[in-house]
């Protein structure tokens, strides 16, 4: 039987010297699943993503990513796991401003030999191919700095960066919070198509409950985190 993409059991997390933020008895994201995780501001969504990405370390419990228990791994091994298997999209896309479009998309390949090897041919060609699929084909535009791009174009760059090298899990942290509803729906469709094409599981986090219908399954943070709004 294949391990789930993410499996959490008895997770507890608190910032140093602070009150507990997460108390998650159980949470699962199947491989290839598109899950919508909604929650109010301060409900611990971003902290949960930090724990899943291995940047933050749980106080207790188990966090299995693709069968590997992150709580048993060293910091370096968690970093390697994130680099090799996770694609991340942030609120406002958070692209590196001083890199070109191509430079941003190929950035994850600089930190992961596995994802670099998964790309057939030069990374720049793969970035162009992905961006082309996302509708960005203007060669001169691809060499420009991302800060020169429109919000819609930045969305697509962020999506291409998250899926390059075929990570098994794509995490999106409120990536549509600054978009109008049309742009938001288009972006989610685009992201769903890309993850479906690569077979990646998608964990989409937002406070906007109206997006739930666009995903395979929706979960509320209040349901999985017993600390809930107190976080």
């Amino acid at each position, binding site marked *: 039987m294949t391990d789930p993409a993410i499996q959490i059991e008895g997770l507890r997390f608190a910032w140093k010297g602070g009150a507990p933020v997460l108390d998650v008895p159980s949470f699962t994201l199947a491989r290839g699943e598109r899950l919508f995780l909604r929650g109010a501001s301060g409900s611990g969504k*971003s*902290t949960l*993503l*930090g724990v899943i*990405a291995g*940047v*933050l370390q749980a106080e207790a419990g188990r966090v299995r990513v693709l069968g590997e228990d992150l709580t048993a791994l060293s*910091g*370096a091994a968690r*970093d*390697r796991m*994130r*680099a*090799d298997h996770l694609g*991340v999209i*942030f*609120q406002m896309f*958070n*692209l*590196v*401003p*001083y*890199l070109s479009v191509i*430079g941003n998309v190929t*950035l*994850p390949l*600089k*930190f*992961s030999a596995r*994802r670099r090897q998964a790309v057939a041919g030069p990374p720049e060609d793969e970035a162009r191919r992905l961006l082309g699929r996302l509708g960005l084909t203007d060669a001169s535009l691809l060499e420009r700095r991302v800060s020169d791009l429109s919000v819609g174009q930045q969305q697509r760059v962020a999506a291409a*960066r998250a899926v390059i090298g075929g990570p098994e899990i794509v995490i999106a*942290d409120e990536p549509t919070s600054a978009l109008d509803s049309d742009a938001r729906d288009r972006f989610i469709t685009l992201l769903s198509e890309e993850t479906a094409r690569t077979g990646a599981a998608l964990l989409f986090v937002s406070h906007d409950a109206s997006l739930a219908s666009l995903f395979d399954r929706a979960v509320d943070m209040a349901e999985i985190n017993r600390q809930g709004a107190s976080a």
Partner: protein
Amino acid sequence: MTAILSLAWKSLMNRKGSVILTLVAVALSVGLFLGVEKARTGAREGFGSTISGTDLIVGAPTGSVNLLLYSVFRMGNATAEISWPTYQQIAARPDVDWAVPISLGDSHRGFRVMGTQAAYFDHYKHGRGQALELAKGERFDDLFDAVIGADVARDLGYDIGSPLVLSHGLGAANLDGGHGNRPFRVTGILAPTGTPVDRTVHVSLEAITAIHVGWETGAKNPLADTIDEQMIRSFDLTPKSVTAIFLGLERKGTILTTRRAINTNKGEPLMAIIPGEALAELWTVTALAERALMAVSVFVIAVGLVSILTSILTSLNERRREMSILRAVGARPGHIFSLLVLEAGLVGFLGAVAGIALIHAILLFAGPVVAARYGVSLAGTGPGLTDLYTLLAVTSAALLIGMAPAWAAFRRSLADGLSVKV
């Protein structure tokens, strides 16, 4: 590492304004340091190459540095003279190969005048044993002939045949009427040597005696001008005294015994010095000032390096989001640490390269002026080992200094998580 280096470079390019200011600070500090160092080594090399092939310099008892300074570098004055019979006695010593007496005390428009013998041009060597060469004309032959150094000719616009009048004493002004009644004629111009020879007017010892006829009391006799040139030429112009004597020995191995013998001369008290030893003594005198100057230059470099630290530290907070993006796409804390250390190293390296380029550009244009005015040769040295060591030291120090903000970014990158609230 190449990927991180490339990121560091692009990140610096993204902050061109502040980075250029920091580069300028580092470049100026490195330029100042190297400028001081080159002036120091240039001065030392210039002094060191002024005299060679002379085994001993003999003068009246004084400090060895003073004797060296006035006899070779034309700085300061002799405390007393050596009588002519004593000179003859020393020149006749069996261990002495050659002896060249010199007589100082007069000047010409700010340039020192030195009375000597024609043998001076054969025995006086500079640099690595290079002999004096005439660029034009010939050595003095007639009583009122003068051979001038290259700087004298250039600065005063003199050529062969130009007349010149000596002044009594060292002032540029013609005190007591000077020696205007005994004009000289330029017969030879020496090729440049980069030594005080370039700034010296050479005449014969007899000429020095001749121009002082009528000055026996130390001041000009009112009747001095009534003694015409013809009459002077008929006088015995053998000097009564000389200022110093340059000696070459038959065998170098006797240098210490010869020196001791001269220093314990039973008749007239004398002092003999070995030029190299006196130079070494001179360096011990100047070493303190040199060290102080170098310390100031090093502190200036330290200030330049601190500007790198300040520049990176102040940018850290606004770059937290950038760091968290890098972490999210797979950068490990070590990558973040390396990124900031490399940024500091790049700024240090580029600043040092700019500083080295700056000082060499300045030397290229200002070097000839400094050499002409102060006799310190700075130009034409080109980038050397000192520049390389400075480049390595500044880059290493910048990498080391970069560890402070790198450590701060490293710690923050662990604490901030994936999304930074700034």
